[in-house]
């Protein structure tokens, strides 16, 4: 589950990138985009939360990774490694 402010551009783009990278790594996962306002209600349905919003103090009870590298390309491999490890755990 990928979340950002309005679920319009940043998260949609990060999700698109994530889907391609998951495919490259032959990993199976459903990627869903949500906006931040609906996250409280939906987070419990996720196995991993890819987060693109600042200073969110909420503990959703779900492993969370930073989604910005999907947009900048910088630090992307470690994030994908983290997601791969979480998916396999």
């Amino acid at each position, binding site marked *: 589950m990928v979340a*950002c*402010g*309005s*679920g*319009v*551009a*940043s998260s*949609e*783009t990060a*999700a*698109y*990138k994530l889907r391609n990278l998951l495919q490259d790594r032959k990993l199976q996962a459903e990627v869903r*985009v949500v906006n*931040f306002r609906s996250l409280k209600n939906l987070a419990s349905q996720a196995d991993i939360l890819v*987060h*693109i*919003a*600042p*200073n969110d103090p909420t503990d959703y009870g779900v492993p969370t990774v*930073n*989604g*910005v590298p*999907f*947009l*900048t*390309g*910088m630090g992307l491999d470690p994030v994908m490694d983290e997601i791969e490890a979480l998916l396999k755990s």
Partner: protein
Amino acid sequence: MTDLSETEHKAKLDEFISQDLIRVGLKAASRDEAVCELAALLQKHGYVKESYAQAALDREKEFPTGLPTMDVQVAIPHTDVEHCLKPGMAVGVLAQPVEFTEMATLDRFVQAEIIFLLSITVPEDQVKWLARLVDLFQTPGVLLQLKDSPDARACRQLLLEKLRKEEP
């Protein structure tokens, strides 16, 4: 993405990156001023509603969009679809950088030299272009080349070329 013929797709991309929406050497004293200038272009050409500028500024404060990209730092401000009328992207190549807060933080900053102000109406339809825009951010040298565009026409040509690229 909705199934479109190649011609339709090209026409849509031509409208998404219109020369009317590009300013090279844009002078702005602050982030808000730069966003307002570019939002005025989007509004003037019928891409967004009057409410867009304020909505984009408000969203920027809560969910910043500065990106610490390599070579040249950028920002991709945008807001909810309800303020947008048709898909488009205003581009400001700034005379002097302005400070944006880095995405997903409130306490890190980037000195943005190019601003891409997005009007997104159907995210699933426009995401391929956004993904290619992001690819462009990640390709060494391209942002530098954009920053050095002599005029809006050259800037647009380069963007069209990069966003038109076929899927690998």
